[in-house]
Each structure stands twice: as structure tokens, then as C-alpha cells.
């Protein structure tokens, strides 16, 4: 997903002169072809995120669309004030390409884990928050963003994620995608939990449980219209996210339910990362398992919940 997104930015820059790429000390040779082909639209800056965001805002104020590429934690926590004041207050067309959203950098520890990035970005007025589930969807997201007014946070997953998105469903910012339908259980996903939810739904189908999976590639603005329609007719609702339970997708859905959008006898459960700095290293899937965000754990969770 990461590479495809970058390649798409390169391609977009060919047809849109205002599209710029700004890397903040990313890996050697990143988008070398871009640099060669469009040197005036390609920048590599230092380890200076606060400055880079201000600079991007200054470029955007003059009609440019800069894509800033670096690690998600540094693109959110380190430069939050610049994002709020320089980017969001003026509704600037700055694009944040945030590598390693969630638990991707598991071996590098909590300094590099972006488990509250969605909450931080959602709290900023004017910010749009996207978490595509695979490379195809990331490409659609970036192409769509060319004609979108305002700042966008792209949460970038690890890469090599199984392709489950479908081009026939299209991609509109702010419009959730119904990936499959069934009347017993509603699974709500964002980012790569879409893949897990589809596997869970498939396993449940074998056991006679019919599942709807709604993929929210846009966490903000949340597609409340689609969500309300399904929350009103499916009794069991579970949100799945590779993010803190504070201020993410589940919290947004909980708010909708609290405001009255629910099945008459419905119940709701949020799965995600508890309010902790994840402890332990390993790989992304090790930490996902630790927090019950893998197929078998979710199935067990659902079994005891729905039949308990």
C-alpha cells in the first residue's frame, strides 16, 4: 500500500503541476524516479516535522497541493500545533501521507506506534481522515483527493496487505462501503481491519451467522447516513480498529448509538487497542493478537457474546 500510494502521488503530479511531494528524511531512493522526472515538484527536507508542516501550509496557501511523507507518529504528535493553526485553521490543501498507522512499527516500540493518530486528527476541525484497507483503495483515495478542498490525513498500512477492496464499489470521501450483507451481525471496520472482518464474516457464514461488513475508509467525516441505516436493523454491532478505543471509529459509532441510532434490542461492542502504550515488540500481527484483533480471537469473542 505504501509504495502504491507513493507511485500514485507521482502519477498525479504528472497531470497536476500543483501536486508536490515532500519527504521528511524517508528511506534512501524513495520515489527516485519522481525526483528525476519532476525535480521541481519533489522535495526532501530534514528531520524537522514542525517546520515541514508550516512550509507545506505556506505552499498550499499559494495554490500548491503538497503531500508530506513521513512516519505517522511524527506527522501527528510532533507537529500538532502546526497542523491545527497553519493547516486546519485555513483549510489548506495539505496531504499527510502517514506511514505505519497503527501497530505497523511493532519492532520499533511505542515511540513509533501510531495508535492514537486517528483520534488526534479527528479532533482537528476541517481535517479529513482516511484509512484505506489495501493498495487498490489507497490508489483510489489519492486520485480522488486531487479535487478535494481541505487537509487530508492518509493512514498508510504496512504493505502487502491482501487486496479486498473492489473497484466496482467506487471511492467517495465520506461514503462508507458495504462489503457484504447479512442480518445477524454488523462489523464496522477501518483500515486493515476490513480484511480481518471479511475473514470473520466468512467463517461465521459457515456457522449460519449472516454478517454485514461496512468498511469506513473515511473515519472523518463518518458516513452517518449509511451507518444509521444498518445500525437500525442489525442487533449485534462490533467495531474493529487497529487504534486506541479512545476517539477512533468505535467512539464515533458509540456516539451515533448514544444519539439514538440503534436496533430496538441492539447491543454494541468495541474492539481496538486499550488505553495503554503497547508493551512488547515482535511484528504487527503479534501486537494485533495481543489485543484480540485477529480472526480466531474475534470469533471467540463473538461466540461468547452472541450466545452468552
Amino acid at each position: 500500500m505504501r509504495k502504491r500510494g507513493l507511485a500514485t502521488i507521482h502519477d498525479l503530479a504528472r497531470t497536476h503541476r500543483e501536486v508536490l511531494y515532500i519527504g521528511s528524511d524517508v528511506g534512501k531512493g524513495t520515489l527516485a524516479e519522481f525526483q528525476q522526472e519532476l525535480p521541481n515538484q519533489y522535495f526532501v527536507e530534514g528531520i524537522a516535522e514542525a517546520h515541514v508542516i508550516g512550509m507545506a501550509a505556506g505552499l498550499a496557501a499559494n495554490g500548491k497541493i503538497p503531500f508530506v511523507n513521513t512516519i505517522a507518529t511524527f506527522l501527528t504528535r510532533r507537529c500538532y500545533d502546526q497542523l491545527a493553526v497553519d493547516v486546519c485553521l485555513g483549510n489548506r490543501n495539505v496531504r499527510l501521507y502517514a506511514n505505519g498507522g497503527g501497530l505497523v512499527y511493532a519492532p520499533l516500540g511505542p515511540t513509533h506506534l501510531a495508535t492514537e493518530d486517528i483520534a488526534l486528527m479527528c479532533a482537528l476541525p476541517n481535517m479529513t481522515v482516511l484509512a484505506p484497507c489495501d493498495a487498490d483503495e489507497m490508489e483510489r483515495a489519492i486520485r480522488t483527493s486531487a479535487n478535494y478542498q481541505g487537509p487530508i490525513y492518509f493512514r498508510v498500512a504496512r504493505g502487502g496487505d491482501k487486496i479486498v477492496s473492489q473497484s466496482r464499489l467506487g471511492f467517495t470521501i465520506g461514503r462508507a462501503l458495504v462489503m457484504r450483507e447479512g442480518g445477524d451481525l454488523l462489523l464496522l471496520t477501518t483500515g486493515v481491519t476490513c480484511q480481518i472482518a471479511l475473514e470473520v464474516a466468512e467463517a461465521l457464514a459457515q456457522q449460519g451467522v449472516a454478517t454485514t461488513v461496512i468498511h469506513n475508509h473515511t473515519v472523518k467525516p463518518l458516513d452517518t447516513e449509511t451507518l444509521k441505516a444498518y445500525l437500525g436493523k442489525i442487533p449485534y454491532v462490533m467495531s474493529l480498529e487497529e487504534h486506541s478505543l479512545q476517539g477512533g471509529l468505535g467512539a464515533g459509532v458509540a456516539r451515533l448509538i448514544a444519539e439514538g441510532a440503534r436496533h430496538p434490542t441492539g447491543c454494541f461492542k468495541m474492539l481496538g487497542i486499550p488505553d495503554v502504550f503497547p508493551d512488547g515488540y515482535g511484528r504487527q500481527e503479534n501486537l494485533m493478537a495481543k489485543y484480540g484483533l485477529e480472526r480466531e480471537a474475534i470469533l471467540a469473542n463473538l461466540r461468547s457474546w452472541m450466545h452468552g
Partner: protein
Amino acid sequence: MVAQGRRGHIASAFSVVEILVVLYDYIMSYRPGEPTWPLRDRFILSKGHGCLAQYALLADKGFFPKTLYEGFCKPDGILGGHPEEKVPGVEAPTGSLGHGLSIGVGFALNARLDDTAYRTYILLGDGECGEGSIWEAAMGAAKHKLDNLYVLIDYNKLMSFGPTSEVWNLEPFADKWRAFGFTTHEVDMVKEPLALKELLSGPPETGKPTAVICHTIKGYGVPFMEHNLDWHHKSRISDEDIARVLAYLEDGHA
């Protein structure tokens, strides 16, 4: 404005008046009736709390009518305690210190990308230079050889709590800017304000951004305010205080 809002960073504004007058009277190209004219020179008051002076200059030049003064810091006014882009002539919202120079680097880079000749002027506070992001931006400006970028520093040597020399020492200040890759000048804005005009009128050194350390006096023009920390920011300003300030200012014009 202060009579309306009864508050403000008056001394911080008086500190930068001479700098702004030089920029708006002699140096910058702009069209008050067309504030977003693409070829205009760009100015950002990075020390946004000095905005009273900028509002006065912008109104004086015709960017907006002086009747807007009545709304200063009021619920329905557009002139706030820190400047925002809804004010014609304001290029970026400032007030959170340490932001303006990075935005200015973006403006200056944009001029190069678009092959336009506008210049970008950023006015920093001295205390503001304690923000690390200023020095990140300085490195960025030098890296990109932005000779169309000018940094002016209001060196009144007083922060909110006390003197910079005690609270957060900036010296050797000029050497820092030189070391960060700027052609660096110093001017005494009290004794010879027009020296700034001379400095900014000529061509810049090719391939280097310019920094001008402007030695100023906080509260300049009103003796009881000069060097007086009580006036860094003041609220509930009385009629009597306003009358005293005006009396000094009118004397100054006489």
C-alpha cells in the same frame, strides 16, 4: 482599538511600528483593494501579538476601513487579539509562536516554483526565537538558498516575564543567524529607522536568505510603557491610561 477592546499587547505593537512603516511605506508592493493580488510581496507578522500595529498599518493603507477598529476583540469583530486571514492583508494566522518563518519558507519556495518575483518578509519576536521550529525553518531557508526571503527580528530584549538576557538568552544572536546561513545585518530602529529601508532596498546576496536584527524598544513612544513589563499584555485598560498614551503619542507627532 484599545479603547474598544480595553486590552491588547500595546507595548509589543509599539515595538514594531517603525519596522512595519518601513515595509509598508517603502519596501513592499501590494494592492489594498486586491489583497490576494498574486504578485504582491508577502508579509507575516509571526509575533502575532503585535497585531495592533499591523491593523493600524493595513487600515491606514486602505485594506479595510478604520470603522472595523470598533470590533477589536469583540464577538462580532474581525480584528482579534491575534491576526487571522479573515482580515484583508493578513497572510497567515499567527499567535502561536514559532510558525511564521516556516510558512514564509513555503511562500518563498512557491515564488521560485512559479517563477514570480515577489518577496517574503517575516517579522519575528525576539522571545519567539526560543522556539525550535524557528531554527528548523532557518535551516530550511538556507538549504533552499531562498534569497527572496527576509527575516526581521524585533529585538526589544524583553519577554513577558523579564529580559531575554535573564529568561532565555539569545546572544550571540547575529552570529547564530550567520551560522544558520543568513546574510545578517543589525539596525537601530530608534536612532536610524530608515537604515532598514536602505538595507531592504538593495538586491540580496545571491543564494542566501537575509536576516535583519532590528534593535527596538518595547513600548516605544510612550515613556511609562517603554521597557515596562506591566504593559506586555494588559487587560481592563482604563480611560485614564488611554488618555495618557494618546497624550504622549500626540506630543510625538507635534
